Structures are given as C-alpha cells and as structure tokens.
C-alpha cells in the first residue's frame, strides 16, 4: 500500500466520520480594535491528538491558544471542549492548562511549590499534593532540584518545571505556547521526543503553537497551517509536505520550486502542463484543473535529479540547464540550476557516499528531471 511519507502511528480519528471532535472551534472570530487576529475559523481537534498550530508571527495562532486557555474571549463564534461551550468560562475554571513560552514560573516559589500551585488551588490534601509533586518531579527528572528557586535553574530545567506544573493537575488538554522556543538546538531535538513520549504515555490532548516547521513536523499528528487569522490547510505532516493544497503552504513548509504554466491536457488520472520554462510536465493527479486554465506545479528539491546526460525520455519532466551555484551542506548538496528560460531551480542530492568520482561542478551543462509522482499541481 502506498502512502504519503512515513506513518508514525496508526492514529487517525479525523478520517473517521463518526469520531466526535474533542475541541471544536466553530466560526470563531477575534478582533482587537480594527485588527482581526482570528477570522471566521473552524477547526476540529480530536481526543489524544498532538495538534500543532503553525504559522508566522501575527498569524493568529497564539490568539487561538489563548482563547482556548480563556485569556481572550472570541468576538463571535463558539469554542466547544468535550461537549461544553467554554467561551464564557474564566481561565481558572477550565480543565485546560497551559505551558507558557516564557515558562512563567513563580520566581518567589521553589520548584516544588511551583508544581504544587495548581493542586493547592483545588484544595487537595497536603499529603496527596506532596505525592503528586514528587510524581511530577520524577516524570521530568528533576527530583534533586525540588527545593531550588527558578533563577537557580538552567533554561532546560525551567522548561521541565513549567511542563511539570502544567501537567500536575492532569488537564484534559495541555496547551503549549512555543514550548521549545527558548532552548538550544540540541536540547530542543531531545525534548521534542520526550514531549511526544509523554503525550503518548499520559494519553492527553496536546495543542502546540509553534513557528518552527521542523518542530511541528516532528511532533504533531496533524498540523494546521495558519495565515492572517485563517487556517489554510489542516493535515498530517506528510500530507502538508507532499500534498500542499496551496501555493502558500507549499512555499511555507520546506523548500520548493514552483513552476507556472497552462494545463494542456487532463485525462486518465494524468495532467499535462506547458510551463513557462518551455517544457512539458506530466504528473499523476486525481482531478486537476481543466485544459486551458492556469496552474502551478510545486516540486521539492530532493525529488529532482541532476544529471549530465539527458534522461531516456526528454520530452516530458526534463529540462536542460546550467549549474548556477552549488551549496554543500554536509548531508546533502544543493544544486541551483539555471534553466534555459533563465529560471533558477533548486535540486538537492543526498551525499550517500563520502567520495564522489568526477562530481558535477560549476557552469556545467546538465539536465534536471523528475518522475510523474514527484510534484503536485497547485490550482490557484
């Protein structure tokens, strides 16, 4: 069976029409004065899902999260959590906890009392609080730091305290606002997997806001790509990457070459595009635009081949050009090929071998080519 990308786990309630969403945003709009932060947005998030809101700063993702936490009230529309409209419920009565971007640890309290804060508010008996706190400390591996104050901890440790504190009350939903933004790259990668394991282990619903696409791709079951207060595409990381539904998503996630042209033929599950670069692209697609209409073609750099010799069938999906620039990144090499039309496309090749005989070099005449399933047709 063929599928897009690698499937991490078989968890896909969104494909089941009978599954009931755990969180629903229905026609939610949020305005701040003249500025519309969230614009008539509808979105479903399922129980035990790791859901990522991805977008550039100012796209409304944080506002969406803050509405879920209760710090902002939607201007219109409703937010339903576990069957209940929560729009009017204040933050301190919601079964939702949040991990803040700045961690927001209480500076005057020890790690222990930071973690126990929420439990004390609920009036939990002291011995139970102590037990739960030590459980949480163990979960985030900070047992020996219980008596420290936040300013005596490193950034990574603070992040863990913040996480433990937000999990201590066993919320139905955990909201994470740029949870790894303040960590360095190495720590961030480690923590990504820890968060995923934790989410699986505890069986919670996680909603994470991030501007880091790699982070979203790694952790999330589904990603909502947002722009200007609207959701552009909601899909699994693989779908977002391999089958973007729009120019915006294709361009926003990863590297992409976009070639514009006109549809010249459409039939038998295949579509042909005469692109402005002066060659024909034939690609497999279920229902593409009708012949004559304008369309774009998006293809990722790693799905293009660069060769000295022309491919066997050079009539479609192949174009001659010249090496314009070469970027050596260690794990792969990126070739910038200037096509005869003048357009520069990016093609990357994995450096699977340490030594290459007679490598392709600057100013060489080459061919770029790709298969019929390598790219996607963009309708807009």
């Amino acid at each position, binding site marked *: 069976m063929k599928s897009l990308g690698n499937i991490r786990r078989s968890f896909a309630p969104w494909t089941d029409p009978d599954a009931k969403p755990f969180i629903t945003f229905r026609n939610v709009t949020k305005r701040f004065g003249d500025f519309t932060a969230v614009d008539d947005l509808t979105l479903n998030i399922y129980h035990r899902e790791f859901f990522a809101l991805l977008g550039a700063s100012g796209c409304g993702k944080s506002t969406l999260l803050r509405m879920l936490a209760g*710090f902002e009230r939607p201007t219109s529309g409703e937010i339903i959590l576990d069957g209940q409209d929560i729009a009017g419920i204040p933050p301190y009565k919601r079964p939702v906890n949040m991990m803040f971007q700045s961690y927001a640890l*209480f500076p005057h309290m020890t790690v222990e009392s930071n973690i126990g804060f929420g439990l004390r508010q609920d009036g939990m008996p002291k011995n139970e609080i102590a037990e739960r706190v030590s459980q949480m400390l163990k979960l985030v591996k900070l047992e020996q730091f219980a008596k420290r104050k936040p300013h005596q901890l490193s950034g990574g440790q603070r992040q863990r305290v913040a996480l433990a504190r937000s999990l201590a009350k066993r919320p139905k939903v955990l909201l994470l606002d740029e949870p790894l933004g303040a960590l360095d790259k190495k720590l961030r990668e480690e923590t990504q997997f820890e968060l995923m394991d934790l989410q699986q282990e505890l069986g919670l619903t996680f909603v994470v806001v991030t501007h880091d696409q790699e982070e979203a791709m790694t952790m999330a079951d589904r990603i909502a790509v947002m722009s200007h207060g609207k959701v552009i595409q909601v899909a699994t990381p693989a779908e977002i990457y391999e089958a973007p539904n729009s120019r915006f998503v294709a361009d926003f996630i990863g590297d992409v070459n976009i070639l514009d042209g006109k549809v010249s033929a459409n039939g038998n599950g295949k579509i042909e595009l005469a692109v402005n670069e002066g060659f024909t692209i034939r690609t497999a697609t279920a229902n593409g635009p009708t012949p004559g209409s304008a369309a774009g073609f998006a293809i990722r750099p790693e799905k293009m081949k660069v060769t000295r010799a022309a491919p066997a069938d050079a009539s479609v999906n192949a174009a001659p050009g010249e090496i314009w620039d070469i970027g050596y990144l260690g794990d792969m090499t990126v070739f910038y090929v200037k096509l005869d039309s003048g357009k520069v496309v990016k093609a990357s090749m994995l450096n699977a071998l340490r030594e290459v005989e007679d490598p392709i070099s600057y100013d060489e005449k080459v061919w770029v080519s790709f298969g019929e399933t390598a790219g996607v047709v963009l309708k807009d």
Partner: protein
Amino acid sequence: MSNWSRFNIVSVVLGFAFLYLPIVLLVVFSFNESKLVTVWAGFSTKWYVALFNNQGLMDAAWVTIRVALLSATIATILGTMAALALTRYTRFRGRLLFSGMVYAPLVMPEVITGLSLLLLFVAIGFDRGFVTVTLAHITFSMCFVTVVVQSRLLSFDRSIEEAALDLGATPVRTFLEVTLPVILPAVLSGWMLALTLSLDDLVISSFTSGPGATTLPMKIYSQVRLGVTPEINAACTLLIGLVAIGVVIASIMTKRREVQRQRDEQAAFAGR
C-alpha cells in the same frame, strides 16, 4: 575615577560642605556642654537627657510616630492600588486625568496642598486633630508610593499572573499569592518612603493639625522661634538619624531588588 584632579577634589569638598556643614554643626552642637548654641564648651549628652524629660517634645514625637505609621500604611495600600490601576488598565475613561491627579501632589507646592486641605476640613466641619493630619499625610505621600510601585509593575511579567489563573487561582488569590509577593520589595520601599516623608513634614501638618496633635517638626519650629536651645539640636539629630535610616533602608531594598533581578536575568541567559 582614577584621575582626581585638584579641581575635582575642591568641587566635591565644597559641594558636600554646602550640603552637610549645617547639619554637621547641628549634630556637633547637640553634644555641647554649654547652653549657648554657638559656643563650644565640651562634650556632653545632657541635652538628650533633657530632651527625654521634656514632656511636650515627647508627646509631639509620639504623635509624629503614630501619624507616620498610620498614614504610611494607608498611603501604601492606596498608592499600590493606584499603581495597579495605572499599569493594568491602560485604556479606561479618564485615565489621563487620574494619573495627573495621582502625580499632582509630587509637584504641588506644600502650602497649596496644606491650605486646600484646611479649607476642605473647615468646609465640612471636620475638627482638626490627629485624624486630619493623618489624612493630609496620606494625601501627599500616596503619590510617592504610586511612583515606586508603578516602576516595578512596568517590568513585571504578567504571564505569571496568567499562569496562576490558568492553574485555577481566582483573581484575588492570584493577587495575594503571586502578584503581591513579587512586588512586595517595591511596596515596602514605598512604605518606607511614605513613612519618612510623614515624619519630617512641617508645612502640611501646620495647616491641618489641631490642638493635641502637634507633630515633632511643628513643636521644634515653634520652640525655635523662642530661641534655639541645644535640646532642639538633640531632637533634630535624632530626627535626622531616623529619616536617614528610613531612606537608607528604602534605597537598599530598591538596590537589592535591582541586583536580584539582574542576577536572575543573567542566570536566565546562562541557562539557555
């Protein structure tokens, strides 16, 4: 500051002399044996003893301390509330007027504050005495507390309040358990400042006090008009000491807060 030129030394000495010579003289002559204020006749602490036996001065001191403690406490509560309102609700109707009114006493001539309060108390038929002096002191010291607390609130990370709300604390408990402990050093130094201001106020007290509520500065002023005695010097020395301690404690607390914050910030960066 490694190069002290002669000019620098002279200007520093002259500057300090200008500021502190009168005070040093007063302190020195409070230990004078002679009753003549300007003639040195040997060291003695007898004027301090006399001071403690002077019932009038002691009564005035007691009034002053009570007024200071009470007015500083109430001014701190009101001033903190004003600071919270000014930093938190940046868009309420009449905010500019409110902030102007809060800060006005900072620059208002004391005579005007005193006179207007006097007119008010007379107009509403309020008997002048302990209560009116205390009210007047609250009025003028509140704005100082507001300034101190407001500057702390500007650098306050509001996400910790949101975190508290998120974890189930009601707004009231959030204030008591999170906001107040964090801004407490600023509130205390505001209180200290209000206390100090109240202790040494003369003009406003003169306008608003009545029989039985003479404060120490008023008492000293009235006695000086009859002739300066070393006893007054002794009283002034004690007052200077008290005010100096108050100011020093307030500035140490501010300084420590600053140092603490810098250390926290450095730790935060180091930890990243």
